[in-house]
Structures are given as C-alpha cells and as structure tokens.
C-alpha cells in the first residue's frame, strides 16, 4: 500500500483528542439511572467518529477497542441498559486507556497491550451482564455471551471471470472487514485439481459473518461494481444464536486455534500482490484444497509493531504538546488587515527615500509614528493568535477531582470561573502540571474530611475554586479552597528544624506560609501517594518562575487557602526598563518594578554588617548592589549617588541599585540557553536599537537568591 497519509494523521489525532474530551465530559455529567438519550448519544457519536477515523487510517487496534466501548454506549442510548456508576467508571477508564493508545500510536511507540486487553475483557464482561447486573453463567472469562448480534451473513461467490474486470475479491473482503467485525470461511468446493486450475479464474467462495453497526445498504454499495458478476446473498444475523467459541475481539492476533476452517486469502496480508496472481494462486499455494491456511486472514488487520514501523517517521512530542494550533478566523482577518495597513505606511515612507529634504521632516516623523503604531498593533494581534482559552487546562480537573475525592474520602465541589481567559499556548502547556500539583495539594492537605468539616460547623462538601482572569499584562490563576488553611505554627517549626529560618527571625504570617515553596519542605506526616513527598512546591515555583511568573499563597486558619499564580501573557516580548550600570545597559521587566527612587543616604542601614537595607516608608528593603554583583565599575561611587529600582516578586521586595534610568521600551526576549548558556541572575537577552546586546534581569531569581529563607529583618533589631 503506497499511499502516504501522514499529513492527515495529525489532524486525525487532534480530532481524537477532542472526541475523547467530549466523551470524558459527557460521562462525568451523566446521571445514573435511565439514560438521557441525547447525552449518551453525544458520547456515542464521539466514540463512533474515533472508531471510523482510526479504521480509515488502519489503526485497527484503536478501532476495535473503541468498537467495544461503542457497543456498550449503544446499549445505553437505546435504553437496553441503564447508566450505572460501574459502567461510567469503566468507560472513563477506557477513555484513559484509549487516550494512551492514541498517544502511543502518535509517538510511534508500543501500546500497553496488557492494559488494553484487561479493559477490553472488562468491557466484554459488562456487556455480558444483563442490565440487572447479573454475572454471566459461562465460566470462562472470554466466553461469548448469547447476545443478539447485529449484522449480516453474506455469501459471496464471484463468477469465474470476475478477475478479468480488474476486481479482486481480496480487496472486497478487506473493505468489508472495515465495516465491522468479520469472520470469514472460505468455500473451496469448486477449486479444480492443479493441472486444470487456471490462475486467472476465481474458484473460491466465501461465507462471511459481519457483525456491527452496519446497514445492508453499505454492504450492497461495497459490492456495487461486481454485483452482476457474482453470487451475493445477504441475510441478517439471527437472534441469540449460539456463537462459535472464537472471540469477537478482532484486535487479537488471528490464530490457528479456531476450530473452523480459517478464511482463505492471499497469504501475505502485508503484500497485496497484483490482481494477476490473485486468489487462484493463493488457493493453489495452500495446496490440494486443504482448508488449513497458515494464518486466518483478517485482511484489514495489521500487527501493531510493524504498523508503527510502517508509519512515516514523524517525531512528535509526547503528551499534550503538538505543533499546531486552532485559531479563530477573526484573529487572522484582523492580522491581515493590519498587515495591509503596514504596507500602506511602508510605501508612504518609501516615498521619502526618493528625494528628501528637511522641509518634509514633520511628515517623516508622522510616518514613523504611524509605523510604530502599526507595528505595535500587529505585534499584539500576532501574540493573540498564539493564545488559547485556559479551559483546556481546566478541563482535566472535574475528572481528576472526582477520582481524587473518592480516593481520599472527601466531598468536593469544583467551581470554575474564567475558563475563557486566554493565554499563550506555550505558557498554557507548561502551566498544566504545576496547576495539577497545586490542586492535588489543596485536595489532600487543604480540604478536610466530611467529619472534620462537620465538627467545625462547615458544610460537608468542600469547595474548590479555579479562577482565571486578566490583570495588567498578566493572567492570574487562583486555586481557592475553603479548607483548614495553612498551619502557620507547624510550618514555622518545620522551617526552624530545617534551618531555613533562624530562631530570632521575625516573619509575618504570610512570609511563614510562603516558606512552603522552599525546597525540601513538606509538613505532611506521612507521604501520601497524592502529594507530600516534599519535592512538589519548590518545583512548582521554579517552573512558574521559569515562565516569567510568580506564585504565592495566602491563607486563613480554619477558613481556607488561596494559591495565586501570576503569569505574563506572552513569553516573547516584554515591556522593559533600561538601566545603566557602569557602562553596561540592562533591562528590568517593567511589570516587576514597583517604583524607582533616588537614594537618600539617611535611609540606608547596614544590617548584620553585610546587608544593606533601605528604609522605604514603613518597610525595610534589602539592597542588591548590581555593580558589585556583576563586577562592574559603577559611575556612582557611593550608594547615595545612584538610583534604587524597587522590584517585587512573590510579594517580596528588593531594591536594585543602578547608576541611572534610561528609557522604557518593548523588548524582544532572546533565549540565553539557545544562543550561549544559562546565566545566573538573567532570564534572557535582547538586542537594542543600536545593535548592542542587553541582558534582562531575572527578578524572581534574584529575589529568591538573596532572600533564601531569610526574612525581612525586624527594624527593632537594627542598631539605631
């Protein structure tokens, strides 16, 4: 088969993921009892699509697994089976398994066959159970239940000269096999002895049982080209027939254990030869009309590993990262309009290049400012294109919370607001894991058990809120629970024990609470497998910092906790404040800057001999001496001659000492790792208008570094 379908694969996979989400959300919202037909139908249709698509692309393992799920769903939508918690749970597990199968197929990796088989068996077992939940009588787990089977019995006997028209029974059987589960038995009665056998004539006939959601119309259509040239008899499968022992799970590798004569077809399923050799040859090779062919042919089947090898090498990232994105067409239209305006501006400016004299300077300036406007609008729109609603990150939580709360024995109501808030696709992909960890944490440590809640007068069902909204140039995500809140005392004790703070350090309650983000910190008494291994929160903070964002916690004992994540809307471009340190120019992200001020020498205090503090109104802020840190000769010889840029990260503030402030401008972030290597204290670099390279200061990193565990000192402990 020489057709290259690889360009269509990615679209198919995306459709599968969408379908899986529909199924999952649908299943979660399904009411137990008599099925809401429309709701089940939606889930059914999603499964049906996935099945159809995967069959088209020859991903037969996916198709057949989905088929079993579809059968169960079909029973529910037709009213044959009521919706039970057990059924929904099993289907949810199957959705997971299906998702993994698709991930694996897409990454061209082997699938977990044991898991697939297990789930398939359980699905079959459930199908075998009647609606009243009685276990089947048959002892063998793979035993076929006496079900009403939907499908047709087909007798297909081509006329001897069918091959002359270029038609090939092998292809017809192959296509038939795509419509459902097929069992084929070959009728060899007309095969003449070898010396009389003409390889260009067809002597075979087939008795086929086709099971599945097939219409007779479809079968007729398939045989349309040959209907005049063969015997074709189609009858519906009868009810409650004693099914043959062979299992209907078509994914299982066809084996010779079937007691009936296996189907006959060209021996190499993987190498469909020219129609010339055709079926006649195959029969001859099988020898003497004996009915045992080496492998019962399932023409549409492909063994899994070779199938993976056959697919063109298209390395795709694992998990949710794909290299395509769906964009609302309006965004594209806006982009195109803006590009149009840019072109107009450019041609207008181009005219000045022809012959220019100073009298036109005003017009030139106007043109340039127009250009600047166009660029800015274009850039904003382009960034918008990369933005997706956060709902795709939030969507996994209903399911996760359902499973987790069951496991932990807690009752949780999940409320989501702002799921349409948009953020950059890359940021979205990277924020999902940290979010999962934070939610798990809230569920595990924040929310109490129903009994505990009752004791303190709270409703038994705890509330977990996920909120997202835009603020300034950021997106803010909050994970709010109405649980027990953080135990500040316990945290303080643990921090003391770990040496993160000294016994004399005075910290506010909030500062203590935020110590949970320090490495190695975990106050969980025992490590639950949900969270509590102590490696979580600091990794979460680091990951969020790496995205240019911040995370902190606020909590009230007994009332609950709120975890706040603040992320920039884009990774690539920021508004920056240029500062001069000595002869070097650096960029400080504008969003991190609270204020800038001239240093008043009276407000400088030396703390413990090493740390300089600046008294800013009521607060004492550590000073980070940038020239010293970067080993640059500053112009300001004393602190008092320079400026202090007060920056904040995670609600902690420091002052950056610089020589002077230069302008503010938008700055395109260039990666240091990609072009050079990672540098401590810098989050990237940019190229200024004059072509020089300017490093961008990593504010969260600096803050973290300089305030490692350390508190903002109590003014009372300072020497007067």
């Amino acid at each position, binding site marked *: 088969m*020489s*057709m290259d379908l690889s360009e269509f694969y990615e679209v198919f996979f995306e459709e599968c993921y969408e379908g899986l989400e529909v199924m999952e959300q649908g299943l979660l919202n399904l009411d137990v009892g008599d099925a809401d037909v429309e709701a089940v139908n939606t889930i059914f249709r999603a499964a049906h699509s996935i099945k159809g698509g995967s069959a088209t692309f020859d991903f037969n393992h996916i198709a057949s697994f989905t088929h079993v799920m579809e059968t169960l769903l079909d029973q529910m939508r037709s009213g044959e089976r009521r919706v039970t918690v057990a059924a929904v749970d099993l289907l949810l597990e199957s959705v997971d398994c299906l998702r993994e199968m698709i991930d694996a197929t897409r990454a061209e990796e082997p699938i977990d066959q044991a898991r697939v088989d297990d789930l398939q068996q359980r699905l079959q077992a459930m199908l075998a159970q009647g609606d009243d939940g009685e276990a089947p009588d048959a002892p063998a787990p793979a035993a076929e239940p006496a079900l009403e089977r939907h499908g047709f019995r087909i007798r297909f006997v081509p006329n001897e000269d069918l091959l*002359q*028209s270029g*038609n090939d029974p092998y292809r017809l059987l192959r*296509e038939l096999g795509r419509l459902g589960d097929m069992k084929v038995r070959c009728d060899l009665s007309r095969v003449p002895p070898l010396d009389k056998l003409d390889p260009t004539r067809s002597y075979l006939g087939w008795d086929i049982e086709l099971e599945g959601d097939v219409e007779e119309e479809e079968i007729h259509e398939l045989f*349309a080209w040959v209907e005049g040239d063969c015997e074709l008899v189609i009858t519906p499968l009868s009810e409650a027939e004693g099914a043959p022992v062979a299992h209907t799970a078509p994914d299982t590798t066809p084996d010779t254990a079937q007691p009936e004569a296996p189907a006959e077809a060209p021996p190499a399923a993987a190498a469909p030869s020219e129609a010339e050799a055709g079926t006649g040859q195959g029969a001859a090779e099988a020898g003497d009309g004996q009915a045992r062919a080496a492998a019962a042919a399932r023409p549409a089947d492909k063994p899994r590993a070779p199938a993976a090898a056959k697919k063109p090498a298209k390395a795709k990232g694992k998990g949710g990262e794909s290299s395509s994105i769906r964009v609302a067409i309006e965004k594209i239209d806006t982009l195109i309009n803006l590009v149009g305006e840019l072109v107009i501006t450019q041609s207008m400016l181009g005219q000045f290049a022809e012959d220019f004299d100073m009298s036109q300077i005003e017009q030139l300036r106007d043109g340039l400012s127009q250009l600047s406007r166009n660029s800015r609008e274009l850039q904003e729109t382009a960034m918008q294109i990369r933005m997706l609603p956060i709902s795709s990150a939030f969507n996994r939580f209903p399911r996760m919370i359902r499973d987790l709360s069951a496991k932990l024995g807690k009752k949780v109501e999940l409320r989501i607001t702002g799921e349409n808030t948009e953020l950059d696709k890359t940021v979205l992909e990277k924020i999902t894991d940290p979010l999962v960890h934070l939610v798990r944490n809230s569920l595990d440590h924040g929310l109490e058990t129903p009994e505990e809640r009752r004791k303190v007068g709270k409703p038994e069902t705890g509330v977990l809120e996920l909120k997202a909204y835009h603020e300034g140039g950021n997106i803010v995500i909050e994970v709010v629970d109405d649980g027990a809140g953080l135990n500040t005392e316990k945290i303080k004790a643990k921090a003391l024990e770990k040496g993160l703070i000294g016994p004399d350090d005075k910290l506010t309650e909030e500062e203590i609470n935020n110590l949970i983000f320090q490495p190695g910190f975990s106050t969980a008494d025992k490590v639950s497998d949900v969270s509590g291994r102590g490696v979580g929160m600091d990794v979460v903070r680091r990951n969020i910092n790496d995205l240019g964002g911040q995370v902190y916690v606020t909590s009230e004992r007994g009332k609950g906790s709120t975890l706040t994540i603040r992320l920039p809307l884009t990774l690539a471009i920021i508004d920056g404040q240029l500062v001069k340190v000595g002869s070097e120019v650096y960029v400080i992200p504008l969003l991190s800057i609270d204020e800038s001020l001239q240093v008043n020498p009276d407000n400088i205090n030396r703390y413990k001999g090493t740390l300089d503090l600046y008294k800013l109104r009521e607060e004492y802020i550590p000073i980070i001496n940038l020239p010293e840190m970067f080993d640059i000769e500053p112009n300001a010889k004393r602190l008092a001659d320079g400026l202090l840029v007060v920056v904040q990260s995670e609600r902690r503030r420091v002052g950056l000492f610089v020589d002077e402030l230069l302008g503010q401008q938008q700055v395109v972030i260039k990666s240091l790792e990609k072009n050079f290597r990672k540098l401590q204290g810098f989050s990237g670099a940019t190229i200024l208008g004059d072509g020089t390279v300017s490093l961008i200061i990593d504010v969260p990193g600096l803050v973290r570094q300089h305030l490692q565990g350390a508190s903002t000192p109590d003014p009372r402990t300072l020497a007067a």
Partner: protein
Amino acid sequence: MTRILAVDDSESMRKMVTFTLERAGFETEEAADGVEALDKAQKENFDLVITDINMPEMDGITLIRRLRSLPDYRFRPILTLTTEGSPEKKREGREAGATGWIVKPFDPDVLIQTIRKVL
C-alpha cells in the same frame, strides 16, 4: 509510488483529477483521448487508469477493451468517470471490462477513498 493515468478530453477535468490525486500522494499522468492514453499506457506501467467515456479519436469503451487486451493491463483496475444517472453507461463500461466507475462531478475525498479501495 503509485502511478495513475487520467484520461479525459476536458482539460479542466484532467487538471482537477490530477490535482486531487497528486495531493493525496499519487503520481498522475494525463491523456486527452483514447489514442494518447493507449500510447502512454504501453510506454509506462500505470497502477490504475481512470477514463472518461466520451472522447474524440478513441472513446473510453474502446480504450478499455484495448487495454484489457494488453498483457500488463489484463487485471489492472480501470475506472470510468460517468455521470450519475446513466446505469447503461456503467453497464457498458463493465461489459468492456472496467473494474468500476466513479460518478462525476466527483467529491475529491470520495475519489481518493474509491481509489484506495481499488489499489
């Protein structure tokens, strides 16, 4: 690489077929009538031939009969392009030895699906 010969006296039709097939990864050659088609078919080996019926010089039916008499094309899939409401044409094609038919105007996806079934 699968090679297909598309035969039709209408250039736009040929172009459309070629475009659809090549986008799906098939190498496609064109011929404007039966004579040209026969000539090309004998010079190179095609895995599949799609032909219109009404053409000057040599029509599709004759082309199919002649192709069938060539040893290389005795069992090759040959499809005719026919309009919907002409079962006689379909039958005529079959009797001449055509494998099957594709209805025109055709839906590109249906064309590709049909061809995949036949290859």
